[in-house]
């Protein structure tokens, strides 16, 4: 087992992708373990629900396997998987909007009883912010999540999403104004 773990730790994404494409399907578990939680916070904050985020991550991982041969740069499997998950999150949000699902449901679903790290007021503020984030466009919400939840600099967000830094800043600045307005409405 120790040897297996050692090999798993050392194998690059590109090596695992090539092994899976060559027929070693079980090696895909390495990529599943490597990335399942890495993008969980992004998906949860984008979708407002841990359960929905889990479905999205699962779908993205399966879709990535089905289309593995299309992965242009196996050494950047993580970035490619992120794009698949991102598409899935955007589609989910569009579907929610079409079906008229209330963002409150999502905020309630995300809030968990284990989160007792702050005072009641802090938790209430976090809930209000979560509700407000649900009112942003998917692009604005994504920019906010990547910048202020994941802590990425604009340059990295640009690299991941394909947007320019200038357009990301514009998106984010509009999000700040909208959040200010929404947070005032909730109080």
């Amino acid at each position, binding site marked *: 087992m120790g040897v297996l773990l050692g090999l798993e730790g050392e194998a690059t994404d590109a090596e695992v992708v090539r092994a899976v494409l060559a027929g070693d399907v079980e090696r895909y578990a390495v990529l599943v373990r490597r990335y399942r939680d890495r993008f969980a916070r992004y998906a949860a904050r984008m979708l407002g629900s*841990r359960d929905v985020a889990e479905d999205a991550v699962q779908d993205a991982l*399966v879709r990535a396997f*089905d289309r593995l041969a299309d992965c242009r740069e196996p050494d950047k499997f993580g970035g490619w998987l992120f794009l698949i998950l991102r598409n899935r999150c955007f589609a989910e949000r569009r579907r929610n909007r079409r079906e008229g699902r209330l963002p409150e449901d999502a905020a309630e679903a995300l809030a968990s009883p284990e989160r007792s790290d702050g005072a009641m007021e802090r938790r209430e503020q976090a809930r209000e912010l979560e509700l407000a984030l649900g009112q942003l466009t998917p692009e604005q919400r994504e920019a906010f999540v990547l910048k202020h939840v994941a802590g990425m600099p604009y340059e990295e967000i640009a690299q991941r999403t394909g947007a320019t830094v200038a357009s990301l800043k514009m998106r984010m600045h509009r999000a700040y104004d909208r959040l200010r307005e929404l947070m005032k409405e909730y109080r």
Partner: protein
Amino acid sequence: MKTFDLRVKQLLDGDLSLADLPPELRAEGEEALRLLAAVDRTAVTLSPALDTRVMAVVRRHAKSPVGRAWRWLNTPRDVELRLRVRPWAVWAGALAAAAALALLLGRAVPAPVPGVQARGGTRDSVFVRFVLYAPGARRVAVAGTFNQWDRGAALLAPAGTSGVWTTTLALPVGQHQYAFVVDGARWVVDPSAPAVDDGFGRRNSVVAVTAEGAHL
């Protein structure tokens, strides 16, 4: 809608500190920072059963004959060819190639189309010229379905210092998707060609190659 002052937005972006703001903007700055203080950055852990579920589906898909056939057809492979030939065969081949080249160059050049341009070619392939304006680029390549998206297979050459990069490739007749790769990392769609979604959030340019030339 009451908007934040630009300097307050820069504070939220991390480009300025509260102390950088003039006194009249401090209160607005503090309000903005309270907004960020409410951000929930706790890690999200997914169910341990996720791995099992994913692998169960993956195994099922891997066993499906359709899935297997699709992956086999779609997986790029390295093919090694070993030839043992007699010297006279090499000379015969070289003569045949020279004759083919002479025929090829003798054909009329079809009218070029914008973006990619086509000329000459054999019955089954057409020379297509790829052009990208990329001032400041150190290296430009074109990768696509015709070269298994290999970023190093087809480099463009700079046309002087104009920022224009070009290359000409013989492409088989059919429809091809492609993109330019600038400096080995940045994928750029051809601004003068139609593009399609690759299914993963990126766009690929499309060129249709017929015996008459390339069509965008």
